[in-house]
């Protein structure tokens, strides 16, 4: 069973006097270990898609299921807990728990399970892995946009989520940093079996993913090989080939 499945999801917003269709019947299945990249221009509905998938926003129509359970049928409390444990999110507008250093902010989710020193050690590792060890002792306002994105990624990864939703995690990064972040995402998907859905405004970023889709006007456009009627197993086969190469 797919870890995350969206079926015919629609979402409309009122924008001034006009109604904007942010999602128009999106269907998507993400298995554990899948690295799905969604390519869309601004206003194409990328962020809405991730927010709906995370259960932060309820869809107007259709069904969102995480791990086989309909998110809409679950209580608000359960959904909030899912966001703290199983679903990790990286938003473009990252925020930090007020008053904490970056290191403590990243280590925070681990404080309950392990000792503070251990949690901080883990936080150090994760920050180093995403390429911002220098940010550990800094305060949020001292960080650049690119560093903030990566700190947010570290914050999401340290709880070891089963599903990671990343909204433009490669924004504001230079070429090498971008490769590093994508490499981390890819290895997290391949090694830890985390399902990842990430968005980006341009394609070269996304070629490191296992599956590539495009979003335009709230409509998810999948490659022909993923269309119904073709071999269902094809994306996985392609992924294996991609991994070895």
């Amino acid at each position: 069973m797919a870890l995350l499945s969206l079926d015919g999801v629609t979402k409309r917003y009122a924008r001034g006097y006009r109604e904007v269709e942010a999602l128009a019947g999106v269907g998507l299945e993400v298995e554990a270990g899948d690295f799905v990249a969604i390519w869309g221009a601004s206003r194409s509905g990328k962020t809405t898609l991730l927010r709906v998938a995370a259960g932060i926003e309820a869809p107007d129509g259709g069904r969102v299921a995480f791990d086989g359970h309909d998110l809409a049928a679950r209580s608000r409390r359960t959904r909030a807990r899912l966001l703290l444990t199983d679903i990790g999110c990286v938003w473009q507008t990252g925020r930090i728990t007020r008053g904490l250093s970056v290191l403590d902010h990243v280590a925070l989710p681990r404080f309950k399970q392990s000792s503070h020193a251990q949690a901080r050690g883990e936080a150090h590792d994760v920050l180093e892995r995403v390429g911002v060890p220098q940010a550990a002792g800094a305060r949020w306002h001292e960080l650049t946009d690119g560093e903030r994105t990566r700190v947010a990624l570290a914050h999401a990864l340290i709880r070891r989520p089963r599903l990671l939703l990343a909204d433009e995690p490669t924004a504001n990064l230079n070429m090498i940093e971008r490769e590093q972040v994508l490499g981390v995402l890819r290895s997290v998907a391949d090694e830890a079996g985390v399902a990842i859905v990430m968005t980006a405004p341009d394609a070269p970023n996304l070629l490191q993913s296992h599956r590539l889709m495009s979003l335009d006007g709230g409509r998810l456009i999948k490659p022909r090989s993923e269309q119904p009627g073709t071999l269902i197993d094809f994306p996985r086969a392609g992924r294996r080939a991609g991994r070895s190469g």
Partner: protein
Amino acid sequence: MKPPTADGQPAGAPPVGCVEAGAAPPVACVVVCVVVVVVVAGAVVVCTVVVAVVAAVVIGVLACVVTGGGVSVAPLSLEPLEPQAPTASATSRPSGSARTRGSIWMMLASGVGGTPRGGQPEPVASPTRLRYARVPGASQWVGRSFELRFPVERRQGGANDTMSVKYAVLGLLAQRRGYGYDLVQRFEEQVGPAWQLNAGAIYVALDKLEQEGLVKPLVAGDGADQPVRRRTARGAPRVIYEATPQGLERFEDWMATGSSMAPLREELHLKLALSQPRNLARLIELTYEQEEACLERLEQHRGGTAFDDLLASAQPWPAVASVMVRDAEVAHLQATVHWLRSIREAMRWLQERPEALRSRG
């Protein structure tokens, strides 16, 4: 008692009756005769006219054919289509005048040119049909303006394409000697899948190069230090080629000269150009389908070495160059998707405001 009249009574009654009876048959005869004559004359006239018309038609047709295709050019110039009209009429004229009598007869004999004239009731459809039917596929202006053989050409490559493959083969042989299949593999490896090389083109290129003396075959087995297998799976000897000094020189020349650019020929562009405002809904769907195709092509590049990644790490030049070539297709596909998105947005906008189209004429 009876007064003798001029008619005479005794003979009067019968003659009166005789006269009346005798007068009636001649009148009827005359009427019948007149009718018959008129009918016969009419029939003769009709027949004459028909014969005359048929004769005139036959003579006219023959005259037209003999004088060199005046009739066949006339329907061609009746182009009702708006955007293509100037090009079509402009191009049809030279082809009409250049047409020789022999080719007309050949077309008539093969039944290509004769059929549409009688058989097509629609004035719009028939010139179009004529245009396609009359001019054989080899005609230049069809190739330029409409590109009827588009999918075939794309697969096999135009003249330009074969030239490039020829020099590519020369270049591969300049790197090191090799046989046909080896060259196919090296081409795929170094240039990438985007070219969609037809393996047969390599062999055609080898033949051409050999004819021009730019490459020469080594007899299989004479170079003992060959790293490649010299026999196929079935044991047939492989022909191994190597570049001659002239070939190397030609290759250097080619490398130093500017490169031609392939024309951008997409089937969707034609559909777009030939569409009507009422097709907008379907066209929008077509852009989605095209984007799916683009994504599928992009998927072929997925997981490969990223261009950015490559620059970050030190790599040998051939790998860098090959990734650069692949990146060209990624960039092209990406640009296509951006284009599809923007035209889709424009078409949606027009779909909501049909009056915007009318006001612009």
